[in-house]
């Protein structure tokens, strides 16, 4: 089991950032790598247990299940059901915390998963930088004041 942790500071109030990221079906609106997304079986995107099915710009398809969603803690977590990445037992959490100094947001995103030992380094880089940090960067741009 390895853990990947990425955190950043977004120059917007936490409620604004949360409004953007809490939509489990909203990845195409704020990440650079998701082309389209839908919630299976027409469930609401904030119903625990719902599954998002999204297509990456590079063509791959990923299915993820919503495990927790807290408007109180600005936190959500999800697991991967199917993906082309070759990971097992993948659970990720995205969490926001207000920074009172400057009314900004401290954003954390981490994942734990299993994979073959020789792929750990590459996957950690791909997920930590290619996914989480890249998503934070586009959030920063989208919410710039």
């Amino acid at each position, binding site marked *: 089991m390895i853990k990947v942790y990425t955190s950043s*500071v977004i120059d917007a109030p936490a409620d604004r950032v949360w409004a953007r990221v809490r939509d489990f079906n909203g990845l195409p609106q704020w990440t650079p790598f998701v082309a389209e997304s839908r919630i299976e079986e027409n469930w609401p995107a904030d119903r625990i247990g719902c599954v998002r099915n999204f297509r990456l710009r590079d063509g791959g398809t990923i299915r993820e299940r919503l495990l927790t969603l807290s408007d109180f803690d600005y936190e959500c977590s999800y697991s991967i059901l199917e993906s082309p990445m070759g990971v097992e037992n993948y659970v990720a959490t995205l969490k926001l915390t207000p920074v009172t*100094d400057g009314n900004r947001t401290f954003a954390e995103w981490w994942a734990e998963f299993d994979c073959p030992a020789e792929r750990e380094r590459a996957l950690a880089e791909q997920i930590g930088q290619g996914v989480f*940090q890249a998503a934070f960067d586009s959030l920063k741009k989208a919410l710039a004041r």
Partner: protein
Amino acid sequence: MIRVRRSVVIDAPIERVWAVLRDFNSHSAWHPAVGPSEIENGEPSDQIGCVRSFTLKDGNHIREQLLALSDRDHISTYCILDATLPMRNYVATVRLKRVTDGDRTFWHWESTFDVPRGREREFDQLVGGGVYEAGFAALAEYLRRDGRADSRSTASRSTAPVESRGVVARSFGGPDVLQARRLDSPAPGSGEVRLRQTAIGVNYIDVYIRSGLYRMIEPPAAIGMEAAGVVLESRAPGFNAGDRVAYACTPPGAYVTVRTLPASQLVPLPDDVSDEAAAALMLKGMTAEYLLHRLHRVKPGDTVLVHAAAGGVGLLLCQWARALGARVIGTVSTEAKAALARANGCEHPIVTRGNTFAEQTRRLSAGRGADVIYDGLGRDAAQENLGALAMRGHWVSYGQATGPLEPLSLGAKSGTFSQPVLFHYTADHLHQMAGRVFAALRDGILRPDVRHRYPLAAAADAHRDLEARRTSGQIVLLP
């Protein structure tokens, strides 16, 4: 219950920020609101359960206990044990998180506590703004300076002595041995501070030291035990140039314009305590504090006998003992001093030139006598004090104006005799003692009455007037 939360992003790696914050006693080095701080009982600052005892720059005193510390999660949790602020059930947590984007640190500081109704907003601002936000900015600056605690003063630090003028006793003797001289103040060493003094207190002990009764100097040497002033240079954590401070300590040497001394002797002055009040109150106020609250705990209904009730310590003892609910009897030398003592809480001033007061004391206390006698008179009043003492009473000899006491038996009264020294109390309790004096001043319990001001160079005149009993209240010298 109120909850205060503040957070910030510090532009330094988490390891550097945590190295400072995990040290439970580091706050005096970087937090601008924190004065001197120490971990009690010499414990290490990462010992779970250790207690830090510190003074805020506003004069408040706080004891906090470390409840939890995690190097893995970068969390420190602590609570307030005692504070001179009305905060109850205060528990705070400092938590750091790594900002991988830019190798910075997210710092979250949060607490919950109770305050008196209606003061929630005030305390949210005091704790959230005055402590947490001020701490954020100061730690960031501290890290920018590379953790050099005294680098602000380093910039202007000189190793040269600073010219100072002082009053020395040329030899042991009368007031005439006092002489104004140039006395340079050495550059502060590590843990020391150099002050420009603004007001100096005069005490009867200064007379004893000048005359040689107490052998505390080798003439020629400056005398004087207390003063207030402003920090010129500091090589001690918790003190910065410009801070207002006061002290009362040994060795003598306070009759000077600039003085260098160990920071451990200094107390930060709250904004609402003037330099003159501090110079007048440090030694005499802390004397009253330990006499009434530590050596003997005066209770409502106690009969207290205060000698020289219109003197510097006497007036403070009368004010404070009365506020504690005691019946206060005092001795004075003139009717005018009796009126002054009465106006300061002494219910029954006894005017006596010949130290005769035992019978009156018994009469004024329905035959019982004094439960505690605060005696600065010494030899000539000894028999009368024994006569004035209540059964199982406490005779406290804290000065000997008429000469040293000779051994005598207290068996007839089952009496307790104490011969305390202020500095043996301040050695361990300085900040608590000064804090209680400042609080009593704020509450109007202690009302210093500086009636006599002399230029520093005229210290001999002050001594002449003090010895001739021409003064009352407190005396200060102004540099």
